């Protein structure tokens, strides 16, 4: 008998409620994916303001849930289990989703699973491309995280191979966008500007790629500073900043490092599948370069469609379905939000 899982996400600036159907054969089908974003309220601050995000989550939670049930043509009483992002993320923002999920679970009398947001970014790919092979490699890139992971089982077997030692990739996009006078969030406007520019115009540094550097860790802070320096020098000389060339060259440096390290990890570990997910996965240059390098190395590349890559409730519902299928014990109704939940901890 198939089961319906409701997923709730509130770790950053998106309030997400997703509904999926877990079939008896273990496949997971997407039924609804509703998101309310507070991104526009943060734009003038140049980054997510936690209190603004938390207020928005409270306002959006029940209306977003209502939209999800309407879109799926389901009733609340159809739900068999609830999954919620327990971490990592902003403490006050997480708390809104966790408290809501507990109340839904208690009043519907169904099990609750507090799950890891990062594992959700991987699990979401099964909604589009079917079950994940074991093992596979996952590259998570967003405004909040940049991680390379070995995934033996998305419901409980995830190992971190490397992560950023300073800024997340998406954070570097936001900061470079500010330097170039482009709006927040920086990903889409830089991607757009880069299309008109020459990616080889400026040779920006590739962080953490020296022979002695950790193989699978990342660093984007030096790159961000190098871009700012280059732009300031051009301004000092009284030159007009070639925004398209700077954007294209910056984007090339990011995509180059991310894909080179991911492909190297897959090759060295003998892993045949790479999943790229998170908000930055929607970047056109990253996916193009990843496709090219994976093809050359004989690696299968899976990138969920952009809507699934950014934060949403469907990814949490999908992960919840895999956790439910694994027979894991439900979480207690007294769980806390875990702002710094490590990626290895899939359920709390």
């Amino acid at each position, binding site marked *: 008998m198939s089961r319906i899982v409701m997923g709730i996400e509130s770790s950053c600036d998106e309030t997400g409620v997703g509904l999926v159907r877990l079939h008896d054969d273990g496949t997971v089908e997407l039924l609804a994916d509703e998101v309310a974003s507070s991104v526009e309220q943060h734009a*003038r*601050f*140049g980054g997510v*303001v936690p*209190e*603004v995000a*938390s*207020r928005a*989550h*409270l306002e959006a*939670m*029940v209306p977003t*849930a*209502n939209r999800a049930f309407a879109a799926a043509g389901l009733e*609340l009483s159809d739900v068999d289990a609830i999954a919620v992002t327990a971490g990592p993320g902003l*403490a*006050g923002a997480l*708390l*809104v989703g*966790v*408290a*809501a*999920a*507990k*109340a*839904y*679970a*208690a*009043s*519907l009398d169904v099990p609750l699973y507090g799950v890891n947001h990062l594992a959700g970014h991987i699990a979401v790919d099964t909604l589009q491309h079917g079950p994940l092979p074991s093992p596979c490699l996952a590259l998570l890139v967003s405004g909040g995280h940049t991680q390379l992971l070995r995934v033996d089982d998305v419901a409980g077997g995830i190992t971190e191979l490397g992560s950023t030692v300073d800024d997340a990739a998406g954070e570097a996009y936001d*900061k470079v966008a*500010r*330097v170039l006078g482009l709006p927040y969030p920086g990903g889409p406007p830089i991607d757009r500007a880069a299309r008109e520019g020459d990616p080889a115009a400026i040779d920006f540094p590739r962080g953490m790629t020296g022979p002695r550097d950790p193989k699978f860790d990342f660093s984007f802070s030096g790159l961000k*500073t190098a871009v*700012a*320096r280059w732009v*300031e*020098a051009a301004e*000092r000389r009284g030159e007009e900043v070639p925004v398209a060339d700077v954007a294209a060259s910056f984007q090339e440096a990011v995509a180059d490092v991310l894909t080179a390290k991911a492909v190297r990890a897959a090759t060295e570990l003998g892993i045949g599948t790479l999943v790229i997910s998170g908000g930055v996965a929607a970047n056109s240059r990253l996916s193009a370069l990843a496709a090219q390098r994976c093809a050359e190395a004989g690696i299968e590349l899976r990138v969920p469609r952009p809507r699934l890559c950014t934060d949403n409730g469907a990814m949490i519902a999908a992960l919840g379905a895999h956790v439910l299928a694994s027979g894991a014990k439900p979480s*207690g*109704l*007294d*769980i*806390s*939000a875990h702002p710094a939940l490590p990626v290895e901890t899939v359920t709390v």
Partner: protein
Amino acid sequence: MLVLAIDTATPAVTTGVVALERAGTTVLGTRVTVDPRAHGELLTPHVLEATRDAGVTPRELAAVVCGSGPGPYTGLRAGMVTAAALAHALGIPAHPVCSLDGIAAEVDTGEPFLVITDARRREVYWAAYDASGTRTDGPHVAPPAELAARATGRPAAGHGAELYRDVLDARVVGPAYPGVAGLVAAAAPELLAGAEPAPLTPRYLRRPDAREPGRPKRVSTA
């Protein structure tokens, strides 16, 4: 009618089941823990324990009443989103009430009084009530010193009156925190009338701290 009351606007995590009739309220089961850092963890377990104590299931509840503050944000939101989701899942209305009114409804002084709670950052939330318990001013947020002139020698309920006893010099009366009977009593007229509940909007009384950035900082030293 069976009403679930919730309040998380103060350090107390408060919930309980109250039977409301025209004649008044009867508390059937209640759970209160004073721990300002545990609202998110404890509230739903407390709701289930309180309903069990009352000998009912959540399905038998007819309405939720939720303190809408004013209160420190994170804890307040835990209660309000819990009330909203419970009401949504059970298909029942959720009525907000001013948390200070929930305290005032249990004050019995026979003269005008204040309700004062802790707003952190060396400030208090306060409201003024007449002898019959009707709110006449507030709720506001202010440093306790600004309230001292009105509070000195006056009866004042709420844990803020005790906390700033030195500055306020009020005559401290109970209760310190909103109680479930008081919360339901504060919402009784609209509950008994079957009125459409107001939106569950928190009373923050303060804007979020956030500053718009200036120009990017220069990174070159030259």
